[in-house]
């Protein structure tokens, strides 16, 4: 056992030590352009976003002056902002919860062999692979106020009586349901594929051993599958949360935040204030509210990657 470990560990140590000075210098030279680009166009703009949120700069001119925390004070007292903040969490939480439940069901169903599996996998992946703005347009048409095919189905099924009608995108609650539906539709394939990768990575022998020991299906789920799936489940959730939390395309294209700013999320509100409204400082301070959650997600991801390295 020890010898095996040493044999495995040795090449790495040897490689690290045999890196000559020239190789190390070359390594830095090759890395420099990408690092410089990322520094100039990701790190600096990120800091600029924080800086702008403390100023009164507007889209028309490059002049500005410091206003301290005034933007944040204005924003936090604003009902539209508070609604957007709440919506962002509701959309992210509800859609990710649904995606996790449905994704687990779907991934397990896809584990079984059946005819046409490759085709089904391809079709199920389409929502994630299609451009988000164009896919959302087709949902806009599905939720159309006059021609909604969903309303037609509900009429035929007798759910909507004569004179009853759903204005999907003209009503705060229905609008939120529509937005969540599109998020679930789009993120489900992504999470399913990640979960599928996790399920297939559990060795068959583990299940066989559990069968021999007389473990029932419930015990197998909770004592084998779930614990072994935990890291990958976390990865799926983390990315799903980040992608949903920061998205503005779905809200912007479906409802534009309406009716009466009731379906805005942080990202779409930042766009409305900072780009369309031209109040850069205010827009920046709205967008800054995305950062705390992203930091939490990044820390969790680092933890996972570190733990996986140790294993």
């Amino acid at each position: 056992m020890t010898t095996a470990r040493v044999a495995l560990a040795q090449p790495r140590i040897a490689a690290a030590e045999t890196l000559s000075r020239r190789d190390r210098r070359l390594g830095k030279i090759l890395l420099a352009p990408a690092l410089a680009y990322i520094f100039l166009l990701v790190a600096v703009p990120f800091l600029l976003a924080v800086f702008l949120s403390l100023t009164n700069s507007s889209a028309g001119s490059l002049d500005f002056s410091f206003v301290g925390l005034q933007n944040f004070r204005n924003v936090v007292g604003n009902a539209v902002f508070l609604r957007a903040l709440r919506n962002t969490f509701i959309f992210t939480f509800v859609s990710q919860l649904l995606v996790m439940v449905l994704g687990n069901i779907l991934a397990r169903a896809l584990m079984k062999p059946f005819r046409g599996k490759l085709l089904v996998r391809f079709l199920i992946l389409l929502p994630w692979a299609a451009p988000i703005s164009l896919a959302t347009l087709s949902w806009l048409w599905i939720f159309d106020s006059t021609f909604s095919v969903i309303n037609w189905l509900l009429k035929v099924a007798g759910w909507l009586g004569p004179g009853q009608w759903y204005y999907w995108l003209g009503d705060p609650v229905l609008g939120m349901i529509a937005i969540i539906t599109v998020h679930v539709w789009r993120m489900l394939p992504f999470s399913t594929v990640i979960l599928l990768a996790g399920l297939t990575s559990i060795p068959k022998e583990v299940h066989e051993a559990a069968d021999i020991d007389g473990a029932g299906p419930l015990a197998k789920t909770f004592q084998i599958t779930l614990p072994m799936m935990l890291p990958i489940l976390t990865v799926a959730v983390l990315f799903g949360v980040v992608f949903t939390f920061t998205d503005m395309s779905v809200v912007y294209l479906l409802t534009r935040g309406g009716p009466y700013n009731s379906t805005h999320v942080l990202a779409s509100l930042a766009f409305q204030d900072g780009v369309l409204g031209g109040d850069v400082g205010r827009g920046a301070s709205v967008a800054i509210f995305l950062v705390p959650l992203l930091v939490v997600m990044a820390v969790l991801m680092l933890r996972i990657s570190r733990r996986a390295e140790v294993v």
Partner: protein
Amino acid sequence: MRRRTGQRIASALGHRALILGFTAFAIFPFYWMLVTAFKQNADLYVGASNTAHNPFIFNRPPTLEHLQILFNNTLYLTWLFNSLWVGALVVLITLALAVPAAYSLARLTGRWGERLSIGIFLTYLIPSTLLFIPFSRLVALLGLQNQLWALVLIYPTFTVPFCTWLLMGFLKTLPKEIEESAMVDGCSRLSAIARVVLPLAVPGLLTVVIFALTLTIQEFVYSLTFISSVGRMTVSVGVPVALVRGDVYYWGSLMAACLITSVPLAILYNFFLDRFIAGFTVGAIK
């Protein structure tokens, strides 16, 4: 015995129904694009309150009218061309930055390289919805407002981190001995990379090219923010923003544009998706 067979049939049917339901949910919007793109207006705009008119099928013969409008009377082809032009340049920039960086992280840096690579990957998490405000300042400062060059400059901010990470993972799977033996034979490291490593890395490079291209063509937020002239829009913004004239939606042409753009992209993306997912799950599966 008979009960067990019954159970098995029931569970097989349930499985079938589950798969069918999920597939229907996934592809319905695409089916809707297809049907809408080829329906006559008289068949399209009936109103959902008319329960006698089944919107799922063609009640009148299909028409090519919407496609003709799309190609002859709109700027769709211009937008498509703009997207491909930006995409091609972004792919080149991405390769120029990510290939050397990935090689360096895979081979020429020790422990700190590993940490740095995770840091680079995490920058992929900084969303466009946070950066578009500072970028609008930067773009104004450089005088690039309303120009595709602004997108060429900014798009690598999401392609470079992810592609560096993907390519680094790929290069690590190649045995070190290949370039070491080339170097023993008298090559310098750089020429060993060019002659031995890159040819072997073609599958990884191809993945990077496909991802940089598809991510670029799909991008919506930056393009919406920085491009205002209709003739300079990319396809992901031109279709939703400029195909709608006033409050009038030309759903037939609109859905035709969505279908023609997204299906080829989705197929391309699908072929490489496993590698893409592997990029996200490195570390969580071992």
